[in-house]
């Protein structure tokens, strides 16, 4: 269980000036709780490798164990500096746990960390740009939605236009399922690279780039489906 960052001195103790690895929370020299530096990441903080398939039970156990180490409740009578460090460290832990527990947030976080932030490219008017390979489907869906709106405005029975909407979203649903499968495959390939930092750099980048594209498309699809969902429930 060691990530590539473990073992390297990456944070400093403000109390005694000593150095400490990223995945420890108390100074090895003076044993005071460490203040949080600006660099560091959720994986190293929790002491787990940068993998996409995580053992959630293990994650929960680590979260509880670390909460017990530095929750502000236990630093109530400590010095102001230690109280501040405990608050910062607990907040960071909670943010880390929340992000890594959620598979969608986890992959987005990892991409950002690896230099492939999944930011949605925008078209000129501020709306998200349609991914190229989906242009046709999105165009078809929008046409269908227009017709559904016309049907509703014309006073058609809800069953009629609802059924139409359901049919319209079917290809998009299928597309999402295909994306999930691709994401799983890419995630497994990423995890397969393991801790071997010396692995083929181009291989890494290819996987990360593909992951980013799938994630962006999935977000786009989800937004699209949410729109349909709103339409259904209106």
């Amino acid at each position, binding site marked *: 269980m060691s990530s590539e960052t473990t073992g390297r001195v990456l944070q400093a103790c403000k109390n005694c000036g000593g150095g400490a690895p990223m995945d420890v929370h108390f100074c090895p020299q003076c044993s005071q709780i460490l203040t949080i530096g600006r660099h560091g990441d959720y994986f190293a903080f929790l002491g787990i490798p940068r993998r996409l398939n995580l053992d959630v039970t293990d994650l929960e156990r680590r979260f*509880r164990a670390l*909460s017990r180490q530095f929750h*502000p409740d236990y630093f109530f*009578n400590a010095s102001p500096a230690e109280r501040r460090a405990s608050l910062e460290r*607990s907040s960071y832990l*909670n943010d880390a746990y929340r992000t890594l527990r959620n598979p969608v947030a986890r992959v987005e976080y990892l991409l950002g960390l690896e230099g492939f932030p999944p930011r949605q490219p925008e078209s000129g008017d501020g709306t998200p740009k349609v991914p190229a390979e989906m242009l046709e489907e999105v165009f078809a869906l929008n046409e269908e939605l227009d017709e559904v709106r016309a049907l509703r405005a014309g006073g058609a029975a809800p069953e009629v236009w609802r059924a139409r909407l359901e049919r319209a979203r079917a290809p998009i649903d299928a597309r999402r399922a295909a994306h999930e499968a691709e994401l799983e495959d890419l995630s497994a390939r990423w995890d397969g690279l393991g801790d071997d930092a010396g692995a083929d750099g181009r291989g890494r980048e290819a996987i990360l780039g593909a992951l980013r594209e799938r994630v962006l498309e999935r977000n786009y699809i989800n937004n699209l489906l949410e729109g349909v969902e709103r339409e259904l429930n209106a």
Partner: protein
Amino acid sequence: MGKVVGIDLGTTNSLVAYVADGVPVVIRDRTGDALVPSVVSVADDSTVFVGREAERRLLTDPARTIYSVKRFMGKGMRDVGDEARLFPFSLVGDPGGIVRIGLGTRDFTAPEISAFILRELKHRAEAHFAAQGEIDSEVDRAVITVPAYFNDAQRTATRDAGRIAGLDVLRIINEPTAASLAYGLDKRHAGLIAVYDFGGGTFDISILRVEDGVFQVLATNGDTHLGGDDIDLLLMKQILAETKNAGASGAEIQAIRQAVIQAKLDLSDRDETEVIVGTHRKRIARAEFESVIRPIVERTLEPCRQALVDAGLQPSQIDEVVLVGGSTRIPLVRRLVGELFGRTPHTELNPDEVVALGAAIQADILMTGNRELLLLDVTPLSLGIETMGGVMSKIILRNSTIPATGSEMFTTFVDNQTAVDIHVLQGERELVADNRSLARFKLRGIPAMPAGMPRVQVQFQIDANGILSVTARELRTDVEQTIEVKPSYGLTDDEVERMLLDSFEHAEADFAARLLIEARNEAETVIRATAKSLRSREFAEIAESELKPGELERIEGALANVTAVLNGPDRELIKARTHDLNEATQHLAEVMMNRSVQAALTGKSIDRL
């Protein structure tokens, strides 16, 4: 160092508890009563009454007697709807400002009224510690509970109330979570727990996972304006309609309120009861009562379902359901909750006391650093800021474990702009107007740069109390920005300070009120003892054979004299007449004592003499 307590500051009743030798105990008065009614009455002469005494004054001085003040904590006048009509006291705040309650020449904010209740609890605890022979009996620190669904303004108002009462508020914790701590003490096992907390004015549902002694809240939901009060209001409106008493006085409304509350309590263990208000009598069967209140109880179920969805759980996955709050004594509530979760809810602990016990446990954890248990709570509402077009952009999502942080980058729109306005909101809705405005901030001291150049990182920190603080830093220059806070529905620090000073000035009046209450209690004890003697079986015989001529008349006269002044404001008069009654009954008491001693010596019961 003074003592530390846990306080449940409730809508209807408040309690104080502490941990003695590792065991949490609720502090009771001499009669064994743990509940201090959350009622405050301020008499014409500024004497302040709190608790039972104030409750009595609901009927005699309703315009100056305040109850359910928790409903106004952190609220603006705009939030107070049509129910204000049914409150006998008047709300006098500015239309756009916070709620103020007018009492003669002075008006009070909700935190000030709550501070009176907190001070009463503080005194009760101090009297308890003094009676136990503690040398340092002062209570100066407390953990205070709030409904889980309280927003930032309501939490801050509660903390302000504590400060005004002279308490260092160690922590604000959520009521359902506190209850789970109290329950968890005797059941140290793992599992998923739902705490259903239906009190006098608020409703909360919290879903927790308990493992390795960590009480982790997974999701919470609720309604801070839904409780037993709403059931009372519904029944009151019904009675008012039936008696066609549109212009009822404050005292009449209070009489109706007390009658319907009594009926509600009766129907928890009886099938039928009668509401009697003046000449109006109305029989209510439980089935009818249930059909009237059902819509209110059903309003609690949707938050339960939402909390389960947020926790990613099915109702059947919940291992235990715990009921908290007085309103969970209603059989219909128990039935509907049981149906929702498919299991019989726990009711072993007193639903009125369990929250205070949990607060005491948390206070003990903070003071001793005891690491056996740990509470991990969540923020009930999403936090965000206003963005272009009146839309709220969320920064910290609801049900995030606290403490939690979020940050947002800001820049400038014109060259050399040095300040930016930020509007902070809480809520789940899309539009700013549909969410709760928490505060408006002004970021100042941004270094002069061309438009769009500054990169101001604003950091939002929700602490373990669920209360927000904001810091900001311009990243290019690494300059910390100053932030001016204008709370939307709260008090500024200066206002809280001033109220604290005011309360010292009123401390003398409070002390006088306490002496008055003590004089009354003393008088009531003597009255009860005398009445008991006069009613006893052997009294006729004693009166005939042992009392002197005119002695009975003197006793009865003295009794009437005390009773006449008992509820008056003159403490010395009550004491003097109590003294007279004591004197008048001294001989009678001796006679009765002798008889019982003789009876004991001869082995016979007094009744057979």
